[in-house]
């Protein structure tokens, strides 16, 4: 038990099914501040752990915002730089040759949508977050390859070290550890 206090209680499971079962139970039991750690995405876990459709939609919205921003800027730049101020006659085409401007507008839309999605995801996930208490657990390194973890956090008002441990025991985890902050 470190001096920095406790982050939560973590249970390791051998397979995904048990983890899902446990998390579902925990959710039913009213635990809210908890998180599951799995080597690969597992359907439905998100909803149980408070990262539901609304949360995911944020990413989509950011992507859309990015796209719109990129597209508008691109067209605005092309339009203003050819029609306002001084411009050149080129190939007998008018200043605002909109068909010629479409491609760059499109490319920029796509590019900034990409940025929106990727950096939006980073932002929502709070990256970069190089240090995190869960890493203090020795076994946790397997979360990125073959084991499944459920961590009920200390800050959950229902959290009680004994009760929670009992609760987790019933799913026969490989191991239960306290996660120091």
């Amino acid at each position, binding site marked *: 038990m470190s001096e920095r206090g406790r982050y939560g209680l973590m249970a390791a499971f051998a397979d995904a099914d048990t983890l899902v079962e446990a998390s579902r139970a925990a959710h039913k039991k009213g635990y809210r501040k908890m998180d599951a750690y799995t080597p690969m995405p597992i359907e439905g876990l998100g909803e149980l752990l408070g990262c539901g459709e609304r949360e995911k939609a944020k990413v989509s919205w950011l992507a859309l915002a990015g796209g719109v921003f990129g597209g508008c800027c691109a067209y605005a730049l092309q339009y203003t730089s050819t029609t306002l101020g001084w411009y050149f*006659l*080129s*190939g*007998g*085409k*008018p200043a605002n040759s909109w068909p*010629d401007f479409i491609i760059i507008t499109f490319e920029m839309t796509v590019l900034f949508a990409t940025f929106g999605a990727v950096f939006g995801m980073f932002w929502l996930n709070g990256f970069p977050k190089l240090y995190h208490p869960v890493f203090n657990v020795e076994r946790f390194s397997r979360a990125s390859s073959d084991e499944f973890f459920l961590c009920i956090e200390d800050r959950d008002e229902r959290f009680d070290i004994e009760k929670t441990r009992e609760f987790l025991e019933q799913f026969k985890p490989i191991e239960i550890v306290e996660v120091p902050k």
Partner: protein
Amino acid sequence: MSVTDKSSGNIPGSINLATIRKKLAGTRGREYWKGLEQVAETPEFDEFLHAEFPRLAAMWDRKIDRRTLLKLMGGSVAFAAAGLAGCSRPIGVIVPYVNMPEGEIPGKPMYFATSLTLGGHARGVIAESYTGRPTFVEGNQEHPASLGAIDSYAQASVEQLYDPDRAQVATYRTIPGTWSAFIEQMGFQAAKMKASGGDGFAILTQSITSPSLLAEIRQVQKRFPKARWYRYQPVGREGVDAGAKLAFGERVNTVYHFDKADVIVSLDADFLGLMPGHLAYARQFADGRRQKPGKPIKMNRLYVIAGTPTITGASADHVLPVPSAKIDAVARSLAARLGIGAAGGTTEAQAHWLDAVVEDLKKHYGRAVVVPGDVQPPAVHALAHAINARLGAVGGTVTYTEPLEPDGAGSLKDLTDAIDHNEINRLLVLGGNPVYDAPADLDFAGHYARVEERIYWSHYPNETAYMSYWHVPAAHELESWGDALAYDGTVSLTQPLIAPLYHGHSAYEVLRVVSGANADTDYDVVRGYWRQHYRRYASNGEAFDAFWKRSVQRGLIDNSALPAKTPHLRDDLASRLPQPLFRQRRGLYLQFRPDDSIFDGRFANSAWLQELPRRLTKITWDNVVMLSPRTAERLGIDNKELVVLGYHGREVTGPAWIMPGQPDNAVTVQLGYGRKRAGRLGTGVGFDVYPLRRADAMWFDDGLTLMKTGKRVFLATTQYHQTMEGRGLLRTATLDHFRDHPHWVDEGYPGKPPKLHESLYPEPAEKPPLEYRWAMNIDLSTCIGCEACVIACQAENNIQSVGKEEVLAGHEMHWLRIDRYYSGNMEDPETYFQPVPCMQCENAPCEYVCPVEASVHAEGLNAQVYNRCIGTRDCSQNCPYKVRRFNWFRYQTGRPTSTPVAAENPDVSVRQRGIMEKCTYCIQRINEAKIAADKTDRRIPDGMVETACQRACPTQAISFGDLNTSHSKINQVKDSPLDYEMLAEINTRPRTSYLGGLTNPNPALAKKDKNA
């Protein structure tokens, strides 16, 4: 270009004289003009870097700044700025005059009327000079032999002037000596000669028409009665003189007037290409073919009996290919048909052809003319004189004057004989290059070596110079005073634009020094001569100074043309005619011709001329052995295959060229190549044919053998595809067809551009309307393919030459090219020329593909902004006319082919490596005119702006002007029913258009239907 000067045509005489006196007095020419440069000290460096990036340039050439630059690149910009803003960096040096010559305005060119000679005959030119630096020459409208036009040789004189390979200093036995040492030694020897009356002293000159120089020679002969004068010109006109003697018993100068002629028959005469007066002749001929708006449709008719294809033949309505050697026979048959002498042997086809021609000639009594070629033997000339007399041409289409050159000079043969008899111990060679270009059988080199004292005066340290004791560098015609006669005898004056760059001296000085007289300057001599003789031409009681000023201003002496005279034709001419030549042929005929570009070899070191595509073959940097297709077939010779020419035991090897229109069994080779000491460029280019030349057969002979070698070589041609693939690019028709179908140019060709509403965009996309809409038109009926425009464009626009390897790689730079297409059969095809400059499209395909707006529309023109170009080359990809040129490497400096920096036009950017360039309609001239007009708030009057190509064109085939000026010449031309736009159907809307070509074939010989 200053328009004010040109329009009013006044070339301030006295003022210039003042300048020139100063120049002549001035120190070494080089510093002189360099000192006047209003740019930084090393122009070439500047031009290179500044084209690239001004500030970089300013920094790059100084140590401290290179350091700064590195810092800048290293990234500590702020530091560099802060740390070094203190130290002031000189941008360059600016050097004013000490005492500005009167009338000189730095930054404005001055124009001097002067004249340049070729083979002794003068063409008047106007030379442009920037702060004392000649940069450009163009024709002098007032000069009868030029009429404002110019030929490629004269055009290249500027390049030759600055040629770094020119002789730089007087040498004795090739060791640098001094002019004063020369004077000293000559004075000493002259004294000795005086005693012997000049015994053993001989002067060898080229043909000279200069009155003052001839007077000088007479002076020498007076001082040394035993001195002898010989004359040799590799491209000589002995046949002409001898022919006249034969016909009239006296030498005459024949002047033709093609403007008066309806039917012209050329007996192997290239009067459009290079006869004396060819510029004037071309103009007269073209005026007879041009269709003038509102005038009745008519044009003259030209028959050419051609020993080898020439541009004259290409412009002809009917060509009869006959080996030069057999033209004698044809001429006799022609004459016989007109009742003169006995017929020579002709073939069936020839006979039929001649019948038709003679009919035509008879029909046009008094308006017909027969022109014998310079290369033809006396008999042909004599017959031509007789025929012309019989046709009532004399006094009309032909006039005779006193000969331009006096008699009294021995031939080269006489000289070598004299040397054989040890009669010559001191030989002064004034110009020419006899060691290289003398007929081989005379073995001039061998004889020359036997002369004790060999003095040579010439531009280049060439073959002859190498064998001479004293070699004195010659002052260029743009560096010295002089005079010469034009083809009609008009006295043309030469004035210097610059003090000799390379310690050159004029022929006068050399002649005087050698003959021990006091070495007056050429200025004193020429002026002195005319002070004595001016009264004949001066308006009554005119003072000499006024006369001189007037004449120098105009570059010629008014109405000094020789008066016409009518020599009496011998009645017994027929009987006096020599036996017909070549009754039966041995082997093949060998024919020599001066080269389209380098003449007799004197221009071999000129990159401009070497790279100028030969008029018909489009070959650069080489000469070839021309064979007719049939002959090549018969001998199994492949194009570009090396063949060995065997003639009188001598052998020469050169690449074969299968020449459509070349007479069978006749092999033509060009003079002037295979130089051994021409300079960096000329040495070793092509193969030397002088070893095959014999004094008794200067132009043609039989007995030639041809041997295959099986080895093929690369020839750098600029046009690889010779037919038009049935595309309506170049449109021609016969005159009769034109009469019946006035709008034939549009009939049966891809149509007009699409209607406006068919375009996605509103058309035409224009900023507020333009004040000027420049446009060009090229008349295909009068373009003779002489390529004067190409080289004029090169000179005006700082276009670089690139050398044979680069031309082979397809990297040539000429903005204006002359496409040459053949049609019809290989034996005597029709040949068409089509000059192709930038079309200045209004919907320019090149523009919209440029990512950086280097190719945009400016002032209604299709601008190419060099300093913005990054060289994607998409514009060239998208140019349907392929008129854009790219600087693949750094051509502009540092290569032997680079144009001398001093010769470059300060009004045009010198393009750097990696950028695209193209025809700009000479925007610098347009801008000058616009500025001049703008300053006085008036419009540019029609005809004030002339593009370089337009001005150079001998036939005025190119018209240029402003479409917004109503009734401007260009508008009239474009209203012609013959006007058409090339590739109009792809909707590029070119500003450059063409007038469909017309020919006027004889119905009796209805083969040549030129209707494409």
